[in-house]
């Protein structure tokens, strides 16, 4: 045995299911077996960022003399056997190795931005440098002029990964040309879309790629100061970014005279305080300035008047993390991936009713079917696919008829949704689309900053109508009213939040009008979700185990042991607790 490397997945997902305990167990067992002592520096146990397939966590790579085996669902008590049988005995424990599915998950992916996530130690700058990190920065600084760097990013047509897909190079150029000696760069890590977590994974798993992208941008446009705006809901990302920034400073990659050149740039972290609207660039700037995060009308754009009135580039985290790869490999290489109008890859978080939930990176132009069935492994419980929700509260629901749609910025917009930051929530036949629309309106209504009337009042009215419909009190004219109101809100709201808030309503009406009609005319929720339109009852498969009777908070269930139970409809509050505990599928909904 010449070398042993054990890598344990420790993103937020990995830690939540016990990643740290598994890592500690490996350290302990390897020490007990005397392996760490005999191999010294050739025995490494380290944490890695998220590798994507969080559904299988804790995932562990065991590399013995360059031969890698990946284990899934590892718990601390399983570690001793891996050390004894695999590392010492040389026999792989077959039943714990990842199955074929795991490889299918990666087969159609192209991992650029995520290439180092899950393989390097995010808390150690040498790990990043050994994997080719900061080479792009050296290339830019020592063999390219700032204008050449800018030109390369423009030519690569790198479009903003945070939502609207505006070309990053154009933003950079505009900022560069705006008069003003002081210029700023802001990395937007305020990933507020519920259901999206790619920026979190990059910041947790490969923080230096973001920092390197920012330094290159600063060199290109002549900025002196950068800010990373991170959500406070991401404590691990904050911790790792802080470490990364200070390590970069120690190595002379940030601060005065970077790499010996006449070039000064530094980065500071700013914590968001929990407001979705701060993902909008002018609101985000207000928030960094310590004010209420309310957007203002544009122009002037931040490229002209941004942070503290100075020209400012604001790019999303994933966008900036792409920059080092483009500089290192060239624009032509980047243009060869993806589609003509949307080159490169996109990271999506694939969640909801799907087998392989996790983070994926695919070339633009891949179809939804490939994402959901080939990579995602299909629908959970082999139920029927109903829709995929993309773009979070600003996006829409795409039905089965568009499964073969190639995914890029423009195609998603053409079917009434948006790319957004890349959240993909898969919905199946048990999800009610009216309820989904209501969920998003509850969200946008609560997050509307209140500055402009169409958004503040309009979203509330939309929500009230949706509540009426799901509550069984819908009126025949409600669908039309929703549509009219939606169009007005879109046309007249001040910022992106209001302009896109009606999308979930419009897209569900467009593709699932029958569900709205069933709620309004038949007083039925076809997916049996909406509380006011369903009843719970107990079927013949009841064994009389009394589990539901004991858990019912309303005392609505009666029945004796080993005899059929009954739900008193007058008392039932439809909480579903009985359904959760029943082991015999005897609790039914109608």
């Amino acid at each position, binding site marked *: 045995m010449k070398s042993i490397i054990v890598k344990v997945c420790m993103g*937020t*997902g990995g*830690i*939540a*299911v016990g990643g740290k305990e598994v890592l500690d167990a490996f350290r302990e067992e390897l020490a007990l077996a005397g392996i760490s002592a005999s191999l010294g520096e050739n025995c490494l146990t380290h944490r890695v960022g998220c590798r994507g397939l*969080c*559904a299988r*966590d804790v995932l562990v790579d065991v590399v013995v003399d360059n031969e890698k085996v990946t284990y899934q669902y590892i718990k601390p008590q399983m570690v001793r056997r891996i050390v004894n049988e695999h590392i010492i005995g040389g026999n792989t424990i077959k039943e714990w190795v990842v199955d074929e599915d795991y490889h299918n998950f990666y087969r159609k992916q192209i991992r650029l931005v995520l290439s180092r996530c899950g393989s390097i130690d995010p808390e150690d700058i040498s790990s990043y440098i050994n994997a080719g990190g900061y080479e792009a920065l050296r290339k830019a600084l020592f063999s390219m002029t700032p204008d050449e760097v800018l030109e390369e990013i423009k030519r690569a047509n790198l479009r903003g990964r945070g939502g609207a897909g505006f070309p990053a190079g154009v933003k950079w150029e505009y900022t560069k040309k705006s008069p003003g000696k002081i210029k700023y760069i802001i990395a937007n890590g305020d*990933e*507020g*879309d*519920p*259901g*999206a*977590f790619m920026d*979190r994974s990059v910041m947790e798993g490969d923080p230096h790629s973001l920092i390197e992208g920012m330094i290159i941008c600063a060199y290109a446009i002549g900025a002196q100061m950068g800010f990373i705006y991170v959500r*406070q*809901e*991401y*404590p691990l990302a904050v911790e790792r970014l802080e470490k990364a920034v200070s390590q970069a400073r120690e190595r002379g990659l940030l601060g005065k005279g970077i790499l010996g050149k006449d070039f000064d740039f530094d980065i500071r972290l700013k*914590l968001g*305080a*929990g*407001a*979705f609207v701060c993902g909008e660039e002018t609101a985000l700037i207000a*928030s960094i*300035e*310590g*004010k*209420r*995060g*309310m957007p203002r009308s544009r122009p002037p754009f931040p490229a002209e008047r941004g942070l503290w009135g100075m020209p400012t580039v604001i790019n999303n985290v994933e966008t900036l993390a792409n920059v080092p790869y483009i500089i290192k490999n060239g624009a032509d290489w980047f243009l060869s991936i993806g589609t003509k109008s949307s080159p490169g890859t996109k990271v999506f*978080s*694939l*969640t*909801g*009713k799907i087998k392989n*939930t*996790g*983070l994926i990176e695919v070339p633009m132009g891949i179809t939804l079917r490939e994402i959901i069935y080939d990579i995602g492994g299909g629908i959970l419980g082999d139920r029927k696919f109903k829709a995929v*929700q993309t773009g*979070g509260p600003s996006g829409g629901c795409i039905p089965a008829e568009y499964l073969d749609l190639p995914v890029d910025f423009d195609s998603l917009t053409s079917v009434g949704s948006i790319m957004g930051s890349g*959240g993909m*929530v898969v*919905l199946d036949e048990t*999800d009610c689309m009216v309820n*989904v629309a209501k*969920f*998003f309106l509850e*969200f946008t209504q609560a*997050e509307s*900053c209140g500055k402009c009337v169409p958004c503040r009042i309009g979203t509330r009215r939309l929500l009230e109508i949706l509540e009426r419909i799901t509550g069984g009190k819908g009126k025949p004219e409600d669908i039309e009213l929703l549509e009219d109101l939606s169009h007005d809100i879109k046309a007249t709201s001040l910022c992106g939040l209001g302009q896109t808030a009606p999308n979930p309503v419009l897209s569900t009406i467009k593709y699932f009008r029958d569900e709205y009609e069933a709620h309004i005319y038949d007083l039925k929720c076809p997916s049996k979700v909406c509380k006011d339109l369903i009843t719970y009852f107990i079927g013949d498969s009841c064994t009389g185990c009394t589990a539901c009777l004991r858990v019912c*908070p309303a005392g609505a269930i009666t029945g004796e042991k080993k005899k059929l139970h009954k739900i008193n409809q007058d008392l039932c509050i439809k*909480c*579903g*607790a009985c359904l*959760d505990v029943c082991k015999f599928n005897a609790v039914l909904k109608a």
Partner: protein
Amino acid sequence: MSEIHSEALNEILSRYISQEGNIISLLQDIQESFGYIPEDVVKWFSKRLGIPPSRFFSVATFYAQFHLKPRGKNIITVCSGTACYVKGAQRLLSTVRRELNLLGEEDTTPDRIFTVERVNCIGACSIAPVFLINKKVYGNATSDKLLREIKHLKKGD
């Protein structure tokens, strides 16, 4: 204001001055020390900085992070992001609220042992539904799991 408090307050004040002043960071520091934003603390800073209290409260009420009322010893947070929602987050929330007898708009038990909150999304969507107890994340959650954890906490007190 007591001796211990004024020490903490002076430390926050000096950090604020050295970092060229930002009300959000100041409020974050206050909340870190006190668990919420007490009115008398805001007034203390208002007097020393010459900033009216209304400025502090306009910011504090804008952001979801800030709390104007004291919170419980244990914070239970149920994630209500899209992925968690479609996988039953609502039921987790109603289970825990029922278990702790929280009614209406209340989010903290009268004995201040528990506070129940929801969060928009913590980005752990692949292990949805998710809840947090005192910042520790629990994935693939069920009502049973949540109730078990609450029982542990109750016993611990």
